[in-house]
């Protein structure tokens, strides 16, 4: 089945990014397809490549690289939301990209299921 995932909160600050990651991993394990992951509101902070989270904790940014680069999932931060919060091209996590809200509309239509974490 085709799943689309939306993440609306900043990593570490809220658990949304963690739950989204565990959900996506479990979905992939079951053979489902992730059409796209879309970051909106403070969720765009997930795409910031300047973070240095503590070594003794999970690295949420690296997880997105794992899913985006290694697993080939399309991971998009909304450009309008990114501009308000200082996320921009050249400073984003490997395996993610910045694009418009149309990408959210698009994945919502294409996927069998939209799951929002916020």
């Amino acid at each position, binding site marked *: *089945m085709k*799943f689309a995932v939306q993440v*609306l909160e900043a990593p570490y600050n809220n*658990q*949304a990014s963690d*739950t989204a990651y*565990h*959900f996506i*991993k*479990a*979905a992939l*394990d*079951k053979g*489902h397809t992730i059409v796209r992951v879309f970051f909106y509101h403070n969720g765009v902070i997930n795409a910031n490549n300047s973070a240095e989270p503590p070594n003794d904790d999970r690295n949420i940014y690296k997880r997105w690289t794992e899913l985006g680069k290694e697993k080939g999932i399309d991971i998009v931060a909304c450009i309008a939301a990114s501009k308000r919060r200082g996320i921009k091209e050249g400073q984003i996590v490997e395996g993610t990209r910045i694009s418009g809200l149309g990408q959210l509309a698009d994945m919502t239509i294409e996927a069998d*299921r*939209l*799951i*929002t*974490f*916020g």
Partner: protein
Amino acid sequence: MLHMVNKSPFTSSAMDEAARIAAKGAPILLIEDGVYAARAGTSYEPKLAEIIKDHPVYALAPDLKARAVGKLIDGVTQVDYAGFVDLVEKDKTHSWL
């Protein structure tokens, strides 16, 4: 439709709103801080006991364990992340944030 709630019922109205709007019979999945609604012996238990008459209620086991929720209200079913995926496969979802 699967209704997902991730906020504590003691501090947010999300759970109450989800339960009030959800169609009779629609399942509710508690995740993150939402799992506190499943805890037995709280002031929220009577409300959840009512809700569970009309809705199958699931709670995410990793979140229960992380919060040491312990004894659950009768009728709440635990699921892991794989079970979460199965619930989403079965139903469309809505998140009450």
